[in-house]
């Protein structure tokens, strides 16, 4: 068996070619090398289902197989209709992911400001939801990126579960909601602090809703992403560019290829939504 320790997850990804985008030979080369490495690791595995095969999966010692290779093993089990084999591989995968998935579940619940008992009950719900989504994704042979970059696909899957969970638990009305529910007190605790002008360019903004703008500026930078997550999709990029990166209205319009007026309108809409979220907490 090929003796390789875990393949580093930090790999260059396949370039997304768009108009005006030029290929990046170096990144391409690294990507191809990684693909070949993963493929070689899979190819030298002992025959599926043999004792040696299960030893390589379940008792790898120093030669831990990358999760991407385990995805291919799951798909082999699926194509052979081997339910028990599939379950065995899932168990290995979930064990290896347990620490990160548990911490993720706790992170999500922290944003909901729950009490102890309720939180521990929901952690298991959330964890089960996530496991279910991962199982479905891994069994779907059409989702090839899982075989190339497991960790990033996992982050995406967790995002789906997070959104569904927040909506189900009533913390978001819906993914395309125009109005959000309350934001946790922890998140807006900094609203009473003096407004910090992070970037002088922001002064160029012509926002009618000054209170909402002040409130948003006062939210701590680290809390801003969570607040933005509760916005409707089309408003997120504008708010992120202005309040996360400190871009001007003009720059934001140029980056997104929209007019200054559209930027202003979206900011106004975002403030309206956020004011509903922020004000009850402040009161």
């Amino acid at each position, binding site marked *: 068996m090929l003796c390789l320790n875990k393949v580093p997850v930090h*790999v*260059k990804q396949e370039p997304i070619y768009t108009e005006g985008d030029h290929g990046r030979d170096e990144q391409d080369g690294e990507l191809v090398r990684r693909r070949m490495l993963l493929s070689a690791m899979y190819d030298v595995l002992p025959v599926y289902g043999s004792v040696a095969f299960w030893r390589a999966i379940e008792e790898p010692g120093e030669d831990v197989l990358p999760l991407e290779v385990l995805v291919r093993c799951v798909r082999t089990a699926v194509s052979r209709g081997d339910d028990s084999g599939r379950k065995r591989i899932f168990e290995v995968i*979930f064990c290896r992911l347990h*620490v*990160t998935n548990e911490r993720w579940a706790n992170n999500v619940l922290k*944003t909901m400001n729950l009490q102890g008992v309720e939180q521990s009950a929901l952690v298991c719900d959330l964890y089960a939801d996530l496991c279910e989504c991962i199982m479905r994704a891994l069994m779907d042979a059409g989702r090839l990126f899982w075989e190339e970059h497991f960790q990033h696909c996992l982050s995406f899957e967790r*995002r789906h579960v997070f959104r569904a969970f927040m909506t189900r638990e009533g913390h978001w009305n819906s993914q395309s909601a125009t109005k959000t529910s309350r934001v946790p007190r922890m998140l807006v605790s900094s609203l009473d602090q003096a407004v910090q002008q992070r970037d002088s360019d922001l002064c160029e903004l012509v926002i009618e809703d000054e209170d909402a703008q002040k409130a948003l500026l006062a939210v701590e930078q680290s809390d801003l992403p*969570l607040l933005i997550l509760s916005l409707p999709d*089309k408003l997120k990029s504008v708010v*992120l560019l202005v309040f996360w990166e400190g871009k001007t209205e003009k720059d934001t319009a140029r980056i997104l290829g929209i007019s200054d007026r559209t930027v202003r309108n979206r900011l106004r809409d975002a403030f309206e939504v956020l004011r509903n979220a922020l004000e009850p907490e402040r009161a």
Partner: protein
Amino acid sequence: MRLSQKEHSFMDRKQEEIVQRITARYVEEVRSGHQPAMSDYLARYPQFADEIADFIAYYHAVEVGLPHETDQMPILTEQFHEAIDTAWERVAQSQGQATSKVTSLLARARELHLSPFQLADKLGVSADVVLKLERHTIEASSIPGELITLLAKVLQQPSQVVQAFFGITVQQRVTEARAYYRVDGQVQSFREAIEESAQLSEDQRRRWRELLDQEEL
């Protein structure tokens, strides 16, 4: 032109994969200690601006700082074992609901306008072997996975359905099926059926021997 739900789902998946590849680079930069400019990503891919912004907001709100997998296998507490079992049951249940039943290989082939000979030809076996498979006179556990996969493809059914036809959906049923046919006295292994067949070509026989060896059957 209207797209079907399946086509929409395919489009969604393709689009999500593109966004995954784009945002993977962003995350890679963050994890390697850089401060990537989100605006660069949005300017480069304005058609995916909403999706990219949503992921980046989520990443910084929830994911940033989470460890990747651990080197040592942790011991899972009972409650997390239960959570995984719950997930497994849900997946198995929905698969079971979505899975139709095949009670006869030949009948299913007929629905697809395939004669027994045509079915045998597509599977790379002879008609007499197909008949033995149909009559369950071949020990289920001796059937190579390759044949199950091929049958599933030819009959346009999930492989679980074909497995269920042979009674090998779960390990317990394999044992039960084996015991039943042994009592019946007519069972033989797939290898025996291959060797015994007078209709199978030498090429086909050799190919199956190789496959059976590979699968250690």
